[in-house]
């Protein structure tokens, strides 16, 4: 909705002229990811309310190497602070070092870095927790019994790994009678999630719940289940609480989702970065917790 921050930057070809203005570089993993769109929206809202800062956003398209290039560009532009949502927290180690070496304060957002100690602050939540929250709710609804199928995000993506790990730990700790009968990657996409769920529901697998790494894939699974006429026999859950998922939740089509405060994280990170850039001190950790959303709580999140 708000492109002001970007536009004002585009019109200023010579940033060195405004000495008062502090420049903040924001490197995001993937602008076309739904969650990150909301995250950025939070950033832009926050930036619009702050004076004396100029924010530059770049998109790594989920390529760690590209992100590194962008961070190098930020360093070359002598940013006053850098906000980083890493494509990969392990592969970002060298870029974090480079930022540190250049003497630029770094704020990580959404994903805690491998070498977080080199950053000034972390704003975000823990993906692992979201997986746990989702699985605990599903396990409870299943009565601690039955089979689940997991729709994972893209291979190697950190939230996919951590959320799936969260599911498995919860099962091991609390629901030993729940079995994981299938795992497949839907690459975070609704269409792929739908196709996989269609196939599962035709196979000989007995599935009592589909647990998805994000809402998009959960929505795909819902469509597949509804079409196969088995929606009422399944529990389907996702993560993110996107507006569309909340509609589905309200309509009783989705069982659970987990709210991750994208705007809170995004806005928070920009506020922290602005303080740092102006030389103020900040905390090392700003935790923005995940919250499980059940159908009855949905109105709190729907605006």
């Amino acid at each position, binding site marked *: 909705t708000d492109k002001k921050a970007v536009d004002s930057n585009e019109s200023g070809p010579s940033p060195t002229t405004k000495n008062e203005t502090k420049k903040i570089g924001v490197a995001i993993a993937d602008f076309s*990811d739904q969650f990150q769109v909301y995250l950025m929206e939070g950033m832009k809202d926050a930036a619009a309310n702050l004076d004396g800062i100029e924010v530059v956003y770049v998109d790594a398209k989920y390529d760690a190497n590209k992100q590194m290039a962008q961070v190098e560009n930020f360093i070359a532009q002598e940013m006053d602070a850098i906000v980083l949502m890493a494509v990969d927290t392990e592969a970002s180690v060298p870029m974090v070092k480079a930022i540190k070496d250049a003497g630029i304060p770094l704020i990580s957002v959404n994903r805690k870095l491998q070498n977080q100690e080199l950053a000034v602050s972390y704003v975000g939540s823990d993906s692992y927790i979201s997986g746990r929250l989702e699985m605990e709710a599903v396990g409870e609804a299943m009565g601690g019994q039955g089979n689940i199928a997991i729709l994972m995000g893209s291979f190697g993506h950190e939230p996919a790994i951590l959320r799936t790990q969260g599911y498995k730990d919860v099962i091991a700790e609390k629901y030993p009678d729940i079995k994981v009968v*299938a795992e497949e990657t839907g690459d975070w996409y609704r269409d792929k999630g739908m196709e996989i769920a269609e196939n599962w529901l035709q196979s000989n697998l007995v599935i009592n719940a589909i647990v998805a790494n994000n809402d998009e894939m959960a929505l*795909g699974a819902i469509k597949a289940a509804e079409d196969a006429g088995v929606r009422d026999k399944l529990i389907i859950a996702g993560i993110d609480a996107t507006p569309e998922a909340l509609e589905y939740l309200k309509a009783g089509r989705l069982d659970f989702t987990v709210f991750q405060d994208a705007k809170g994280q995004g806005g928070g990170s920009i506020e922290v970065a602005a303080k740092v850039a102006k030389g103020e001190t900040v905390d090392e950790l700003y935790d923005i917790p995940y919250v499980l959303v059940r159908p009855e709580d949905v109105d709190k999140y729907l605006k």
Partner: protein
Amino acid sequence: MKSESIVEKKNNEQFKAMLNIFMKKYAILLIFIVMVIILSILSPAFLRPRNIMNVFRQISIIAVIAMGVTFIIITGGIDLSSGSVVALVAVVAASLAHPNQFPLIFAIIGGMLVGALTGCISGTIVTKQKIPAFIATLGMMIVARGAALIYSDGRPITNFTPSFDFISGGYIFGIPTPIYILALVTVVSHILLKHTKFGKYVYAIGGNSNAALVSGINSTRVVIMVYTYAGLLTGLAGVMLASRLSAGQPTAGVGYELDAIAAATIGGVSHSGGIGTIFGTIVGALIIGVLNNGLDLLNVSAYWQQIIKGVIIVGAVIMDKRKNR
């Protein structure tokens, strides 16, 4: 005596030649049938009517794209933009399908026109500027994705009339609507390619552009029409996808171009131009679809699925070539 044996030999040779022609045409179909048999032995669920419908429904989008791509590859070109155009069309169609705004048909026609427009632009650049199709459509791939993201502000466009869902989610006489769409597009494309002047020109341009030139064929016009037709079908695929997902997603369709090109190539469409059939492309799409479906049904681990899929695709084409010799 001698003349008789010669006649016999001739007959025998003729039979061999016919068998040869049959094998040439249908080897890939045989390979597909073998795949189906193996899968139905391994998984009893595979041949259930409902699953078969699933496979068709799942391939319908890629197959519709692949048919347009078949035309393009036969002219000696390529289209890398299909996936992005699908996304662009999906968001446009979804926005046109808002309830109480326009009649539903607007969304369908509008989406297809956007697709056709992108195709027309690519085709024009390829022919008038004489630059490689690879680059022209790579450019379109990047631009269309950007346009989709800008148009939708990076968010899925939802909230459309429930009737829009019918396109991909409905049933007619118990058979899913996308199967009808697929059948219609197949028949139209086949007729266009095999039984019209336009189709003959498509083959001629790909087979020997010089021959087309000296025969007075306006290659520029034909090639632009080919890209436009392919764009139109990609547009249809975009509408189908938006309907299937109940959302126009600007990020949808990533990698569809490769699936579509792979389907055509497996089906025997040659990248050097002048060779290929709609029938082959459909079989190619089915092979990919059955593979995706079967590996899920068999619950093969996700990483291994990739290895198996890669090997089988290459293997199918190798077998196809072998048979042709």
